[in-house]
């Protein structure tokens, strides 16, 4: 699980300084949501879709049956907010239950066939980490813009 903390260069503090103290929590949550939405949009673009890549045709009948009616992994990517007092956290990633296999796509893993380790490795296709890394500046900008709009 990756956790990235925004480093303030004074911009955020100045924006928060213009806010009333009692309104800071609400403004922070709105700003974190704005930053998280940037990551969510990028991750959804980068996440592989089985219908596009063609891997869905390789699925067994039981897998197709078990996955019928569920969302694509890309569509499960969302964000959630958590309040820990003076720390406000925005969590971005695929949500359960359909998104529970997100880590299997993001990272590489061993290949098991009929219950046995085939000693082969399947390469990961990371989508969340690149999305977070590439949009770092955009996250910062969205965060500050949201704060200023409230100030």
């Amino acid at each position, binding site marked *: *699980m*990756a*956790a*990235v*903390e*925004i480093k*303030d260069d004074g911009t*955020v*503090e*100045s924006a*928060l*300084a*213009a*806010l*009333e*103290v009692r309104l*800071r929590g609400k403004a*922070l949550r709105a*700003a*974190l949501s704005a*930053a*998280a939405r940037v*990551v969510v949009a990028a*991750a959804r673009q980068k996440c592989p879709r089985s219908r596009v890549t063609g891997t869905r045709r390789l699925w067994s009948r039981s897998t197709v049956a078990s996955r019928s009616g569920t969302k694509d992994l890309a569509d499960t990517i*969302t*964000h*959630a907010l958590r309040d820990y007092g*003076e*720390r*406000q*956290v*925005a*969590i*971005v*990633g*695929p*949500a*359960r239950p359909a*998104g*529970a*296999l*997100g*880590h299997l796509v*993001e990272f590489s893993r061993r290949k098991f066939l009929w219950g046995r380790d085939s000693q082969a490795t399947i390469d990961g296709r990371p989508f*969340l*980490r690149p*999305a*977070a890394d590439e949009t770092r500046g955009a*996250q910062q900008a969205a*965060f500050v813009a949201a704060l200023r709009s409230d100030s």
Partner: protein
Amino acid sequence: MTTIDTLAYKIIADTQGFTRGLMATRQEIAAAKELLRESVNSWDLYQAKLQAVEQLQAKGLLSSEQYAAAMNRLNAQSPEAVQRQQELAEMARRLAAAESEAAAVVARHRTEREKYTEAVQRLAALKAGGQFSGESGQRTYTAELERLKGLLPEVQAKQMAQAAAEREAADIVARHRTERERYDAALQRLVGMKSAGLFSGEAGQRAYLAELERLRGTLPEVQAQQQAAAAAADKHAAALHRAKQLTADAETPFSRYRSAVHELSQLKSQGALTAAEYSKALRGVRAELASNLPLLGGMAKLLVSQGWMQAGIVATAAVAAYRHVSAQVSVQSAEVERLAKSSKLLGLDVNTLQVWERFGSRAGASVDTVGEKIGKFVEKLGGMRAGGKDLDAAIGALGLDKKRLANASVDDALRMVAERFAGITNAADRAYLAEQLFGRGGDAMLPALTAGAAGLDEMRSKLAALGLTLTVDQVESVQRAKRAWSEMRHTLDGTWRTLAVQLAPTIEHTARTLSEEFARPENQAAMKQMAADLAEFGRAAIDVGVALGPVVAATGRMAGMSLQGWAAIGRLFTRGTLLEDSGEADRQAVQARIERERAEQRARARSAMTGQQLETYVGGRQTAAVADEVKSLNSELAKQAESLLRTTAAQRIAALAARGATSEQLREATAWEKLIASRRQANAAADKLRSKTEELASSHRQAIETFGLSAEAVKMYELRMAGATAETLRAIAAAKSHVQSLEAQKQLTEKTAEAGLQQWQTQRQAQLQAAGFRGPGGQTAAERAAEETAELRRQRDLMQLVARLRQEGSSEEDIRRQVAIRQQADAIDRQSQALTRRQRLLESGRQAEESVRSPEEAYAEQLRHIREMMDAGGMSVTAYVRLRKRAAEELARALPGGDRRRGVAAFGLDSAEGQDQIFEMRRAMAALRKQAQIDAQVAAEAHPKPALDSKPPVIQEPKPPVDQQSQAVPAPLTNADRQRMLDMDPLQQSAEMAGELATQTAYQSRMVAALERLERQETASVAN
């Protein structure tokens, strides 16, 4: 809650390190901002606005005109300008207050004559302005003028004196007016009110007639006639009453009986009659006596009648038949009534109900039980219609259509149930369903139900064959008959009650007379004979025994119906006996006597009745409906008669009728009353004709005798004709001449005093002029003399006021207060005059100053005024330029061509400051010229010349002068020009400036023309 756990990216915001931040709320920040905004003073605000305008101008966001307008507005809003405006407003307010106060003071001390003069002047001005055009306007003007004249004190006093004299004369005339004249005047007023429509409607007509009658009653001769008629009617009624009493005393049955007995005794004593004949004749006389007694007559006739047995049998049979018929009719009527009520309650046909009752009687159920069961069925049917389910099981078992049953009438519903019931054979099912349909005990309906529709129809046919079925008309006829019978019984009860009350005195009188008669010795034998007859009747009664019992009982009941009829039957029997026993001659004599007695009896009964009782008696012989109608008609007619015939005589006649006067008496009195009324009408018509003739003759006589006389003479003539005595007229004339002499004396005195004052003023003016008077502020001798004369007038008025107050009896305190008030008013008047004089001086001074002002001063003043108007934003730049141009042209016209030096000196151009001013003016002109060039370029770009193929809008506009078209835009000043101007002689500079001014004026004219052309083009393009 969204769960993201297997793969997550966290963005963390930690505020632990944030130390800075606002601790104030938004409301507090807003309040602080508001406080800061309020703390800015007007000067800072003005400077800020100036800076803002300058910045906008520097950025090129404002044109020169917008900048100039904004600066003008800002200048007008500057603190100095605001303060100046406030001062000006305060000065204007004070001046207006002073003027209004002065006007109020002047208005307060205006005399009535001055007010009148002013009002007349206003009216004349309005008329001159054409406000009173046309005939109506002329009338209005004349009326208003008359009204204004009436406001003058002398006119009012004259009018009051005249009104008082008229009132006095009217009082005198009224005192000497005769009753006839009063009557005529009141009648004229009443007729006037009627012609004005004040007595509209029936009530108004009644009131008018009543008032007319009342007025007529006030006439002495009418009152005398009425009193005479009333006295005659009273006398006549008293004579009639007395004659009636005498006749009644003389013609009582007992007197006749006594005379008959006396006659028979004489005949017997003379041997003309045998004992048997005497007894027989005596019985006849007794029967006659008894027949005249109402109740005892019938019994007595039975006692003395020989045919009582046959009469009793016939009466018994008749009574028995009547009883039977009446009982059956009563029973059937009650039955029909019951059927009608039950069928109405159940919503059922009468005949259907009878059918069901017949079937119910077979099961031993009474009609009430059948009605109750059908009512239960109807109730359940209603519940089913409202959604109830009580009948669902029974309807299902019978196989009926629920909807059809709900929509059917009660007749049809019962018929449908009976149809289905006929098909059920199981007795238990029948009983169960009957109880379901008709409630507990519904088995009483089983005979009808099992008979089915066919059985019901058969029963109905049987009833029809027996004549038991009823139509709606028959039922209603029976009900109407029953109601009529009930009403008739009530009417008869009233009749008998009235008769009992009215007969009570007769019975009393009869009983007393009988007791007196029986007590006489000579009647003892007759009493013994009557007792023997009674014993004989008793024996006969024992013989008939049982047969007589029903007769008596029926007679008692019939007596409740017609006691009068029973008496008639008795008389019939008696007279039949008499007629049988007498010969033909006796028969005719007795018949004639009976008829006579009957007529007398009827007349006595009617005379003993009041009008209402007579009406009731007549009505009792007719049906109740006719009696009611007659009663209501009589009541209505009586009301109308009471309202219309309100004469005393009519009232007395009605009272006499109510007290029992006979018809002959009433006819006689009515004839008298009609004769009097016709005489009265004839008299009234004659009076009216006479009065009209007199009125016409009087008007003609007045017109002839007053021809050419003045209004006052006509008034005196009218007073004389109205009955004023010569002494009164002389007194009125003397009073009038006295008033006129007093007024003339007063006018002469006032005129003399005024002439004295005028003379004194002239002398004083000459005296002052001789002494070389020179008053303050240029006051002349005439003004001083007029002022002193006004002071003398005031003193005179004050003395007159004191004298008048003392004459009116005012206290010294009041006089002092009035004098003080008058003196204060005079002081204010003097102040007002001084203020007026000062205003006049100021105005003349301003005019004098205006007349000696030089053209340069006028030009400078005009420029200053134009500049102020421009600064105040009261005009556009175009108007400003035009006004400047006009002022310059006026100055050029006012200044002679060779006197330019004077103009330069007037401008102060020969001084150092003047040189600076010239330099500044030239610089301003150059800037203006440059700006005009820029504006012309901008205008040319904004409105380019149209292409050759396009059709420009046709605009008719005046062409500018040729010289202006040919002239080019003046070139800007250069430094060499400026140096050359500085080196010039002042005179030459002035000429140069004038030339430059003319050039600039021409240029401005061209610019103005160009701007107007542009505006017209824009307007035309917008319109197209």
